[in-house]
């Protein structure tokens, strides 16, 4: 491992009921995925404001992933459908702004899918690592 190997910054929003529990299960089963992924717990995927994702990119994140309950399984009945619609809009806008589509992702991970959580994270980190650093939205005013 060389010292200057690129390590992406990845923010993962996980809903409290499914995906966060799925991440816990991945941990309980000792399923490895890169330490570059940092999880933020939200009550539901629909709590994730597109603003949060823009903020992450402004602050230099290289990839953002949103995980929620499977369609139809939302703890709040319909939250993940809202999330899916909002993210579809946001991602196409990000694409327009020149942020590669592959830097953002929505995944459904249930509380029972620890293995899927790890697999998704491995894949996402690999994809983002291949894309390299993301500077396009970085706001230098945010840097002190």
């Amino acid at each position, binding site marked *: 491992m060389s010292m200057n190997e690129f390590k992406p910054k990845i923010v993962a929003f996980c809903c409290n009921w499914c995906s966060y529990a799925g*991440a816990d299960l991945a*941990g309980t089963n000792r399923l490895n995925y890169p330490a570059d992924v940092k999880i933020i717990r*939200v009550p*539901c995927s629909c709590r994730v404001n597109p603003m949060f994702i823009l903020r992450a990119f402004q*602050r230099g994140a290289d990839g953002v992933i949103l995980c929620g309950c499977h369609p139809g399984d939302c703890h709040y009945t319909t*939250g993940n459908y*809202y999330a899916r619609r909002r993210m579809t809009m946001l991602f196409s806008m990000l694409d327009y702004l020149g942020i590669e589509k592959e830097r953002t992702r929505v995944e459904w991970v249930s509380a029972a899918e620890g293995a899927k959580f790890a697999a998704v994270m491995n894949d996402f980190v690999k994809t983002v690592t291949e894309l390299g650093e993301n500077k396009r939205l970085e706001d230098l005013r945010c840097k002190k």
Partner: protein
Amino acid sequence: MQKIGVFVCHCGTNIAGTVDVKAVAEALGKEPGVVFSTEYQYMCSEAGQNLIKDAIKNYGLTGIVVCSCSPRMHEATFRKTAAAAGLNSYMVEIANIREQCSWIHKDVKVATEKAIVLGRTAIAKVALNTPLTASETPVVKRALVIGGGIAGIQTALDIADAGYEVDLVEKEPTIGGKMAQIDKTFPTLDCAACILTPKMVDCAQNEKIHIYAYSEVESVKGFVGNFNVTIKKKARFVDETKCTGCGICTEKCPMKKTPNLFNLGLDNRSAIYIPFAQAIPKIATIDADYCNMLKNGKCGVCSKVCAAGAIDYKQQDQYIEQQYGAIVVATGFNPIKLDNYSEFAYNESPDVVTSLELERLMNAAGPNGGTLLRPSDKTHPHTIVFVQCVGSRDTTDCGKPYCSKICCMYTAKHAMLIRDKYPDTEVYVFYMDVRTPGKNFDEFYRRAVEDYGVHYIKGMVGKVMPQPDGKLLVRGSDLLTDEQLKIEADMVVLAAAIEPDKTARPLATMLTASMDTNDFFTEAHPKLRPVESPTAGIFLSGVCQGPKDIPETVAQASAAAAKVIGLLAKPALKSNPCTAHSDENLCNGCSSCERVCPYGAISYVDKEFRMPDRTTKVRRVASVNPAVCQGCGACTVACPSGAMDLSGFSNKQIMAEVDAICR
């Protein structure tokens, strides 16, 4: 100025094995706002908790971060710890450095770095936490049970037994439901009426239970602990307070050709009727579709013969408003209509019947007084063919994709009862699988085969062909002998799939309770919360939630009652304080939030605001009912003006977390 304390847990070697806990505590101690940082072997132990309590007191901490296992594990523990030391329990954040760090990373350096990032993220969040208090709403000490079958009856009795008032709403003139129509019950073969009617009487005599028979729920407003319900009491054209149930009117009524719906139309009754002898309430009802007086104004016989003067042709529907703390749905089921299964000749031949119709044909109180006679010519049937799974496990448009669950057992029961009473009758059962997962169920089915000589045939009937001589030629496959059978039968009995009652769907809309694609109510958790709807305060009892037999229905009915009692026993409801709230100064009254709220927690109110020029102006603004809000946050994102925010997961907090991760 925030004074934050950081507590890093070793979790034995679970965390300390891969994370340098000392380095983490040291690094986090330098974060802004942190005044105390330490590590300890087991933070969740009593000694660990005392360490936290002491630190809160000694350093006057305003917020704490515990770097430990998942918050799903010990968040509640540390919240209690904080509260015990006088700190608001919502000033606690957990950094998950076990499941999401030490357990998945092997490299100590990598894991330690990540643990520090997770720690500082939690610190950034806790710095913006605000003390939250769970709000309290009073609970109306009264329950509503919708549906008066065995499920509703059992739930009502159990709730009343605990001392609470219960209203039982039933759309038919009598309670009892499907069980009242059944002859015998599996696997013990007790007579259904003998075990059901005492419970019906208990309901009627219990002073805590009020039965609204021949009534329907018209509207539901409000929320858990405080529902406001309108009940429509349909006009019976008989004064309930005067009718004695003597039955003279039913005898004298000249309109004798009214289909008897209690007997599923297998015989006739009069236009004024009492569904069956043990009906509760035992009050006559006039069928407006058949009564000559109500249709043409000519007759009036019942009014003349009624000594109590109970007949009231001018009676109108009545509306009753009532408050409830909890609502139980027990709307039950019906067999599906068999119009799309003409290959079984159900509409073509009166001798092809559904299993529920067979119950009536065999019932002592049924159209034949308990003697099994075939409907067409009232002769004794010598060969009877049962067809299982008619419309169940059927993924085409006309059937139901699920297993109806009860048919295997009631068919075994029917076959056994017929063979027992009429040993000269041959009984064939066409089955795909025999499913008997219940106590003494498989033994029961085996008895039908081994002791009663019922012919079970693995296969399915392809066609039932009525013959000119009145016989029914049944063509079906025997998959084990690899033969196509042609059986000349006298009667064919179809185990029709069951489906939720048609009233369930509009009711679910009123209750904002969710349903699956088959119109069964969904439960809050399929395993761990099976009798609660995801909507707070709505409970499920019986087949409205999924196919069930009587023992299961009664068990679930009592479980639902226990949940209701648990709710009603509370003096007030503490709700999750992580709810949405709106900044009225920013709200522009657009209703976006109201539309996305799955719970109907947001309403709009007109409020007076003081303007800068000292005038006042009335504006329409959003108002969140914290008792109903479940805290999903959908509204916060929908709000175009940024007025809506979620306590505990505010925009600022999440942004601070993002910043801390990306730093």
